[in-house]
């Protein structure tokens, strides 16, 4: 609301634009901000609508019929071979690679201990363990308090290689190599020294008060061949018992990159769209670099299918998943599962104020100050996160039932169950969906 004594509002020179200029004119520095993309791009999810059955192909009542939401993340064999024994017993000959078993296609993405508090980590870890899904550690090591939940943790290997030793790799249910992040594609990250308290320093295995700097590239990865080497080295270090994921930011040629990753030996590719969250990112990256997850998932799924290698990797999508409908749409566009991040924080109390980098989070989430961290009750927060996961899982089952689908497998990549609402033909082609009415 404009008040009489306010400066005149302007559609181009808005208050945030002016304030940013004031700050940079004063400091000469790079502008940083928290949370995800705050620029006013149209949200493609809101231009996609889901289908439901009427008369023919009747809908299924999830109250009465079992709905299969269990999802397996990892490589699938191209074909299965069996042998038949004397008593007509069949046994599987094909060697299966380790997969993660999820009871719902919703996981919680990587937010490091350091960026967020131990109580926040404990709450999410407890919730995913109870639901039967997984969460990421982020690049901050695995705190001892989370060891009881390690079977539901995906440990991350990023360019800073913080807190990483054999013990860490062996505790994780899966290992994720982080190449890029949707909120800051192409650049590294750094945890400011103020947030590196004693406990964070132990978990990351760096000195207290020192900046924790993750360089832009991994210094042993300069090509897909090098990436393959890191993937294989992690499998070799853990004796081929764990799936290895590779996370990239959704950028212009994401499909070609994902096709390379599918050939690197990785078991899943994680694609983080340009609305992905962050504790701190340069604004110019957060708001202007990368592409939305909807288009990225569709492009990657299409490319992998065309090349006949879709079975080589699962696709995990993240970056701006706000509600169960977004999950259903993402799966229709070709994802196997999603990572949520900000939504889980909101379930714990986050109000999306966007000042995570200050370390003063009132809700005890994005802070290491003991008095503030104590405000977050991990048990209550765990119940809230679990409730959210349960609620969205129920809604997914309802949406599937209404569409006459009783298995998530049949929803995956099922673009026919989507229609584009006021999207141009080029975008409809990229998403491979028809227009409403068509």
């Amino acid at each position, binding site marked *: 609301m404009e008040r009489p004594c306010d400066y005149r509002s302007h559609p181009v020179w808005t208050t945030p634009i002016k304030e*940013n200029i004031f*700050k*940079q004119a*004063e*400091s000469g*520095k*790079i*502008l*940083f*901000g*928290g949370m995800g993309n705050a620029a006013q791009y149209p949200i493609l999810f809101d231009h996609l609508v889901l289908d439901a059955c009427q008369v023919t192909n009747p809908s299924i009542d999830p109250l009465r019929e079992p709905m299969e939401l269990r999802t397996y993340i990892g490589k699938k064999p191209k074909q299965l071979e069996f042998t038949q024994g004397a008593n007509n017993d069949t046994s599987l000959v094909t060697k299966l690679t380790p997969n993660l078993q999820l009871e719902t296609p919703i996981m919680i993405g990587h937010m490091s201990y350091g960026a967020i508090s131990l109580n926040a980590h404990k709450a999410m870890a407890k919730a995913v363990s109870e639901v039967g899904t997984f969460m990421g550690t982020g690049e901050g090591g695995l705190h001892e308090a989370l060891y009881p939940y390690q079977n539901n943790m995906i440990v991350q290997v990023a*360019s*800073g*290689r*913080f807190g*990483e*030793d*054999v013990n860490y*790799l062996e505790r994780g249910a899966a290992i994720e190599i982080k190449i890029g992040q949707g909120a800051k594609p192409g650049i590294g990250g*750094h945890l*400011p*020294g103020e947030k590196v308290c004693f406990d964070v*320093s*132990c978990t990351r*295995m*760096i*000195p207290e*008060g*020192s*900046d*924790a*700097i993750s*360089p832009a590239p991994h*210094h*042993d990865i300069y090509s897909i061949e090098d990436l393959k*080497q890191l993937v*294989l*080295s992690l499998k*070799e*270090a*853990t*004796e*081929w018992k764990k799936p290895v994921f590779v996370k990239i930011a959704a950028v212009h040629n994401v499909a070609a990159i994902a096709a390379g990753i599918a050939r690197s030996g990785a078991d899943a590719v994680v694609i983080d769209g340009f609305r992905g969250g962050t504790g701190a990112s*340069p*604004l110019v990256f957060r708001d202007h670099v990368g592409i939305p997850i909807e288009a990225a998932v569709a492009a990657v799924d299409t490319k992998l299918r065309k090349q006949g290698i879709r079975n080589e990797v699962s696709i995990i999508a993240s970056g701006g998943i706000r509600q169960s409908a977004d999950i259903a749409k993402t799966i229709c566009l070709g994802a196997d599962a999603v990572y949520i991040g900000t939504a889980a924080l909101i379930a714990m109390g986050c109000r999306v104020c*966007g*000042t995570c*980098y*200050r370390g003063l989070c009132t809700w005890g989430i994005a802070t290491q100050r003991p008095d503030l961290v104590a405000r977050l009750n991990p048990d209550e927060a765990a119940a809230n996160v679990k409730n959210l996961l349960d609620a969205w899982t129920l809604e997914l089952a309802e949406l599937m039932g209404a569409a006459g689908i009783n298995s998530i497998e049949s929803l995956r990549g099922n673009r026919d169950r989507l229609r584009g609402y006021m999207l141009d033909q080029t975008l409809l082609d990229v998403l491979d969906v028809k227009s409403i009415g068509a």
Partner: protein
Amino acid sequence: MSHITIDAAGVHYTPLNKQIRQAVRDGVSEITLQNIMGQRFIADGLTGKVKIVIHGVPGGDLGMFMKGPTIEVLGNADHAPGNTMDEGTIIIHGASGDATGHSMRGGKIFVRDDIGYRGGIHMKQFQGKRPVLVIGGTAKAFLGEYMAGGLVIMFRMQDEASYAEMGLASGIHGGEIFIRGTVEDWTLGIGSTATTATKEEIEKIQPYINEFSEYYGIDSQKLLNSSYTRITPVSNRPFAGKYTWE
């Protein structure tokens, strides 16, 4: 104390590592690997106190994530030996490739000859764990880039001219680098500073000079009596002044 020999001719790294792991589980204390020819990931993630002697040239990521073993390579090594290694010792009787000691968290690496680009990149340290990389020859550009801790010592045994490779210790925010002789001013990367090492500082690296000399049968006197340049970070918060907030 038991010893076994494994003939690695034509053996892929996975079955090779399986044999090594099994031997360690069986309590073998020394393993000789014959006919190594480019196998990657040897001793990757291996835990224990075993000694491994390698005849031949191991491939990339030798001793990656390793915790405890001692590896002696009677030949050159490929890129990134000691990548993210945790504990133990790697002694290379020859040269090694790029990113030697990448992100090392503990343990020691000795290289008799030269190393490639980005040696000791992002080495770190924590409490009692302080990784050490000792280079007998010289290093290509970006030595000690992003170093967050640890110690790099470079003797440049064959060279008396000033060290002249770009990006030395650029982005360093922890740890220290000793280079025998002098370095050209322009080699210093952003965030690093160089001083002539004091007698006390050289005394602190003396055990590593002696250890190096012992491994390679070199008279340590020349190294002990040399002058060194010590490169350290200007700050442990090199990027703190680069940003302002929304």
